[in-house]
């Protein structure tokens, strides 16, 4: 695989007020894969994502398809953790999805009809088109998450970053989102997902980045998702896995 088709993280470190939050993390993933970023609470999963996006002061380098973050900003869709959003904000569902189009609209122009159509197509994809005129706070958690996924879709990006997209959402929404992510992956998009529920890791992801401040292991799910690695990451308080084969105590 050439660098042109990879996301390469090289010796990435982040300090918070003198404390090391992320230590010397290096890994690479291929274009067209769904990458799960997993690890215990406080492992630096969000920090890693923010550092990769250049939102956090860090040491080390990150290259996306052989380009620095600066060059591909417009090509990145980001879905924030649900609890960072003010759900009383006076915007409707369609307004939020339209925000995904903002980087495509020249600054001197009004929002165009084509952008609205694109937003509606994205809403349809997540099954939320009937809710286009609702205020975002009137939706359930899963519906809210689907709206933000629709926003990411409407950006027409090649790279997706999702911060804990499955926390506090219903089964149906989770299924819709997972199917969509797989569809995107099949179109050659590269998707990073922060995730902390270990039970579905094997079903959801192609590659894993297992973290606990430093990199425990990164690579194909099969190689990373082993009892030994998880024990190292979770230090005893780990999770149940691989029915029948081996058990690690669950104690999150």
């Amino acid at each position, binding site marked *: 695989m050439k660098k042109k088709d990879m996301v390469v993280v090289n010796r990435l470190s982040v300090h918070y007020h003198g404390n090391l939050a992320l230590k010397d993390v290096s890994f690479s993933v291929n274009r067209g894969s769904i990458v799960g970023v997993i690890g215990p609470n406080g492992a630096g999963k969000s920090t890693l994502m*923010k550092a990769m996006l250049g939102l956090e002061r860090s040491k080390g380098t990150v290259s996306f398809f052989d380009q620095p973050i600066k060059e591909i900003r417009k090509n990145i869709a980001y879905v924030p953790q649900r609890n960072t*959003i003010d759900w009383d*904000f006076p*915007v*409707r569902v369609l307004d939020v999805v339209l*925000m995904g189009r*903002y*980087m495509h609209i020249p600054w001197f122009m009004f929002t165009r009809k084509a952008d609205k159509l694109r937003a509606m197509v994205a809403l349809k994809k997540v099954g939320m088109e009937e809710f286009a005129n609702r205020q975002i706070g009137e939706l359930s958690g899963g519906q809210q998450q689907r709206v933000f996924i629709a926003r990411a879709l409407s950006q027409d990006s090649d790279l997706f970053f999702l911060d804990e997209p499955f926390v506090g959402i219903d089964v149906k929404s989770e299924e819709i989102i997972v199917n969509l992510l797989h569809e995107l992956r099949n179109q050659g998009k590269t998707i990073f997902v922060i995730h902390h529920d270990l039970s579905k890791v094997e079903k959801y992801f192609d590659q894993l980045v297992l973290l606990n401040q430093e990199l425990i292991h990164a690579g194909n799910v099969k190689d990373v998702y082993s009892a030994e690695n998880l024990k190292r990451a979770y230090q005893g308080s780990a999770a149940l896995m691989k029915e029948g084969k081996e058990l690690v105590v669950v104690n999150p």
Partner: protein
Amino acid sequence: MIGQISSFIDQLVRYQYLQNAMLAAILVGIICGVIGCFIILRGMALMGDAISHAVLPGVVIAYMLGASFFIGAVITGVLTALSIGYISQNSRIKEDSAIGIMFTAMFALGIVMITGLQGTSVDLWHILFGNVLAVSKVDLWITVGIGAFVLLAVVLFYRPLLLSTFDETMAKASGLPVKFIHYMLMLLLSLVTVASLQTVGIVLVVAMLITPGATAYLLTDRFPVMLLLSAFFGVVSAVAGIFFSVIYDVSSGASIVLVASILFLFALFFSPKQGIIPRMLRTPIQQG
């Protein structure tokens, strides 16, 4: 009441100074309402209060140098915003404390300067509480200029402003200069404050920023509508406030703010969707 209104209109037609006052107050109502929406949604009400108080020393220095007090006020306003940012980013002091420290310091500096200048014609009372009836033609033109600039900036940068207000992380991730936008907003805030100096005065500017916007926030779920409603309530407060101030011969700034506050109370209790009373009526009565 009808007699009072016709007498007010009569005076309005007859006196130039009242026309100037009315136009200035309407403009201030509009721009305060618009900028106020962003201030509210960014949770920066305290910042609005801070910037408005912090322009005082700038006004006094400009007066001493014989320069336009608009320039002095804008410089101290932005300087205060920058130093609040500097303190909260470079020490363990949180932003609200940094705001509290900086704006009282600047305000105190202004008061010391004014009291030191005793014998001159800088009138502390008028700067603090406004004197809309003393708006001159030049003041009015400056207000028009500021108003045009602020509204143009909001229209041109509507999308970046909205996105960075709603979802800062995504705004940053997609490459928007979020910090720059913040300080631009502080610049606009200083400009709006200066424009409001004569109408409502430093102490009450924050009411014009927050109250109409908050009223609008209770009435709509759409941001563009909130902007329009907020500007509308700003204008209604301005007009009604000046009316009461002329008829009952009371402070104009305070009257304007009181009208805005009463409008807010109405929205708080009677807004169809968010109002306390309609919401109470909607909750099903508990059985048993």
